[in-house]
């Protein structure tokens, strides 16, 4: 009898146990640390635009941009997006070359659950700027079966 109970308990746990490990805010902090190499993060300049209430986490429209024109010495080299509760902390690293008109990117991302999404802009003068949005996801990505 005990073994049957154990089996049942095990059966309910098993499908969730492996492969669903989630990134933690510490993982995201480590990923950002690897990017900034210890330089301080300033709030501002970069703007992250995502809906606050997401109905479908499989495709969430996201725009990340630095709108204010900056002098060439301070131009934005790259934009980085991190998600605190996705299986992996990284979402995208975007780099802007000499023919780019503005450091702006729109794309669609997956969000595993309600969480905080963080954007970081890296400028040519070595400064880093950040913005974050805490959002709600009603239908999560990553749980769909094949």
């Amino acid at each position: 009898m005990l073994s049957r109970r154990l089996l049942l308990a095990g059966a309910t746990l098993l499908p969730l146990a492996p492969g669903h490990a989630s990134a933690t805010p510490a993982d995201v902090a480590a990923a950002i640390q690897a990017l900034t190499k210890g330089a301080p993060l300033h709030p501002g300049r970069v703007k992250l635009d995502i809906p606050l209430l997401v109905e479908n986490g499989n495709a969430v429209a996201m725009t990340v941009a630095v709108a204010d024109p900056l002098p060439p010495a301070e131009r934005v080299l790259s934009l980085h997006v991190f998600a605190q509760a996705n299986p992996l902390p990284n979402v995208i690293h975007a780099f802007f070359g000499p023919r780019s008109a503005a450091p702006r990117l729109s794309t669609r991302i997956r969000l595993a659950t309600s969480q905080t999404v963080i954007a970081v802009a890296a400028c040519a003068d070595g400064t880093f700027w950040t913005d974050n949005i805490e959002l709600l996801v009603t239908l999560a990505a990553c749980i769909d079966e094949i």
Partner: protein
Amino acid sequence: MARPLINIPKRVKRGDAFEIRVLISHPMESGQRRDEVGKVVPRDIINSFFCTYGGEEVFRAELFPAISANPYFAFSARAVETGLITLSWTDDQGVSGFETVEITVE
């Protein structure tokens, strides 16, 4: 790989900013899902994307499984000269895509 949808204006004024929009057909298998027997479906995502204009870089991205299936990117470029815009990408299986679009600068 199916042809991507690319939206770039045919003609632009010199010095103007213009929008490059691209939608690539790809499953972007995250490597997090399991099939009906519990086996992990191997990761297969487009992991890098490049855009150049007249041989110079416009935009480059390193992608992770958090990018949705059939990835969409919109970004901007500055009109400098009549020339070719190239878009290229590579997935985890080493399959790459390459498209060029001509733009006329007036």
